[in-house]
């Protein structure tokens, strides 16, 4: 593996709800109320190599979007450090180069574009304010970026509401590309699109990757999409990475029981499965995660050790790691 462009070192993100006056008073009088803390991301380590596409997969509420937002600098990490090209960028992002180098593509192509701005301003704003491009060259630059993502530059005077979902997503991509990033965090970037449009946008991502040597953190709940575009896949469950491996390996031979359950339930043409047995139980509340291995209440192989001791992410080959006490038995 080449030198990583981004290293995530023990990053955690907690959201806590402070008690208000009424809550504090109630607690003083003996009510069983305490501050609620959600461990959205819990001590995650990840390396992402230059030019690779890392798929981050998990159920709703497992913290994958939060991890993406921490990487993109929208949320500060509660603990741990982010290293971009070896430099720490966790603290307030005064490092403008690193801030601009990591950009994010959002899920909702409607909410992610400012409804009161014209497309040319949406795309051209950041390069102009940061002085990346001379003011006189902004119109030509915007045209150029729009062509790059497959948008007609003659439409740049329009507002976002005048475009379709796929076109809006292209505007969002153009906005990110306008600051010349090296790294894109795609947070469910195609989940809100029609299937035919999804394919176009995925192809756009892949073309841009070749053309601009981009690295992607591709967050998705859709295994088929991830299998198609990712080089490596990390599976996340309740704030932790449970398994990480090259895409072919993880799809051919999953080690973690959760990965197995996920893959078994993905509808596939070649298997023509009729019966689906969903992973039993609900994802536990991140307010009150189970002790030990987070997956133990739903795991068919769970024993007392799983309920008591948190499994570490264990390297089982140079490019493969799994966090389970029983991966050898699987």
């Amino acid at each position, binding site marked *: 593996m080449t030198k990583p462009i981004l290293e995530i070192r023990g990053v955690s993100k907690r959201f806590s709800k402070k008690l208000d006056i009424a809550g504090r008073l109630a607690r003083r009088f003996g009510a069983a109320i305490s501050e609620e803390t959600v461990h959205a991301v819990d001590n995650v380590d990840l390396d992402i190599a230059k030019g690779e596409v890392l798929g981050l997969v998990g159920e709703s509420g497992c913290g994958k979007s939060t991890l993406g937002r921490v990487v993109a*600098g929208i949320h500060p990490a509660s603990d741990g450090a982010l290293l971009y090209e070896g430099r720490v960028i966790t603290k307030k*992002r005064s490092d403008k180069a690193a801030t601009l180098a990591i*950009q994010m593509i959002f899920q909702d192509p409607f909410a992610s574009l400012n409804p009161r701005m014209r497309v040319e301003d949406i795309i051209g704003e*950041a390069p102009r304010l940061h002085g990346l491009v001379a003011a006189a060259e902004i119109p030509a630059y915007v045209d150029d970026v729009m062509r790059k993502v497959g948008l007609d530059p003659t439409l740049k005077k329009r507002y976002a509401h*005048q475009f379709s979902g796929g076109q809006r997503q292209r505007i*969002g991509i153009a*906005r990110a590309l306008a600051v010349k990033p090296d790294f894109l965090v795609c947070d469910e970037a195609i989940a809100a699109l029609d299937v035919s449009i999804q394919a176009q946008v995925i192809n756009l991502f892949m073309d841009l990757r070749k053309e601009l040597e981009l690295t992607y953190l591709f967050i998705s709940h859709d295994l088929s999409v991830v299998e198609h575009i990712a080089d490596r896949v990390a599976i996340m469950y309740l704030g932790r990475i449970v398994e990480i491996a090259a895409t072919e390996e993880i799809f051919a031979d999953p080690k973690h029981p959760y990965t197995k359950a996920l893959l078994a339930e993905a509808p596939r043409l070649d298997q023509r499965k009729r019966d689906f047995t969903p992973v039993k139980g609900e994802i536990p509340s991140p307010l009150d995660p189970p002790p030990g291995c987070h997956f133990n209440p739903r795991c068919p192989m769970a024993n007392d050790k799983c309920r008591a001791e948190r499994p570490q992410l264990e390297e089982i080959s140079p490019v493969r790691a799994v966090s389970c006490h029983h991966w050898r038995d699987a």
Partner: protein
Amino acid sequence: MTDMTAAKPAVRVETPFQRFRAEFFESRIATAALIVFSSIVVLALLAPWITPQNPYDLGQVDVLDGRLPPGSEAFAGYTMWLGSDGSGRDLYSAILYGLRISLSVGVASGIIALAIGMMIGLIAAYMGGRIEAVIMRLVDLQLSFPASLVALMLVAILGKGVDKIILALVVAQWAYYARTVRGTALVERRKEYVEAAQCLGLSQTQVVFRHILPNCLAPLIVVGTVQTAHAISLEATLSFLGVGLPQTQPSLGVLIANGFEYLLSGRYWISVFPGLALLTTVMSINLVGDHLRDVLNPRLKK
């Protein structure tokens, strides 16, 4: 139908403002109210050139003309179509000059209160935490008093005068704007386009003023219109009670108060005509404001 036209942008680029204008003029009542209000503004602005008398110039006011019924001829030769008041002011002239004062007091206090309330509301929404709690409790406290009571107390302390009454109206009204802006800004700052702006490395001020504020303007315009009408009637109330503007600068409220003592003696015109002028002004602004709210609120869109 509106959806159909929005779906074919290829024909014509429609800015949000053009769409807004088309929707606004769909309502006949609101269009009529806007026309009425604009004519009132034009008449008030043109007052020095279209009135026979300057009611502020004591040399032109003749006590002998006092309390003449509508249609009488003044000593100076012109006809007083709306009659005259107790001190001999031609009511038509006095009403137009009074409108100038009422409108400028209402609009000035509205704009200042909007600017102050907007800044405070934005600060509350963006800073959050203790600052927000303090500001919003202050707003609650302020709004728990009737605005007229707050203004009355302030004017009683400050004394008479246009500047003082504007100050009193600003203090009585900033809280409405602050609350509106904070509510909208809280919703807007959670949206993904704000996250995108942060991600693009924009500073906090740039995010607030370039992205959040423009998306908070619609409800502010609505509140601004309605509150301006409110400010005009509040000023009239204060002047009617005798604590607002002085006799030498008669606003509509002062004129109504002047005529009040003659009402029971059958000289209805001294109070009724300024009262009608006030009613028309406030109502036309309110009708425009109500329709603005309908047009600008996406939840009421067809």
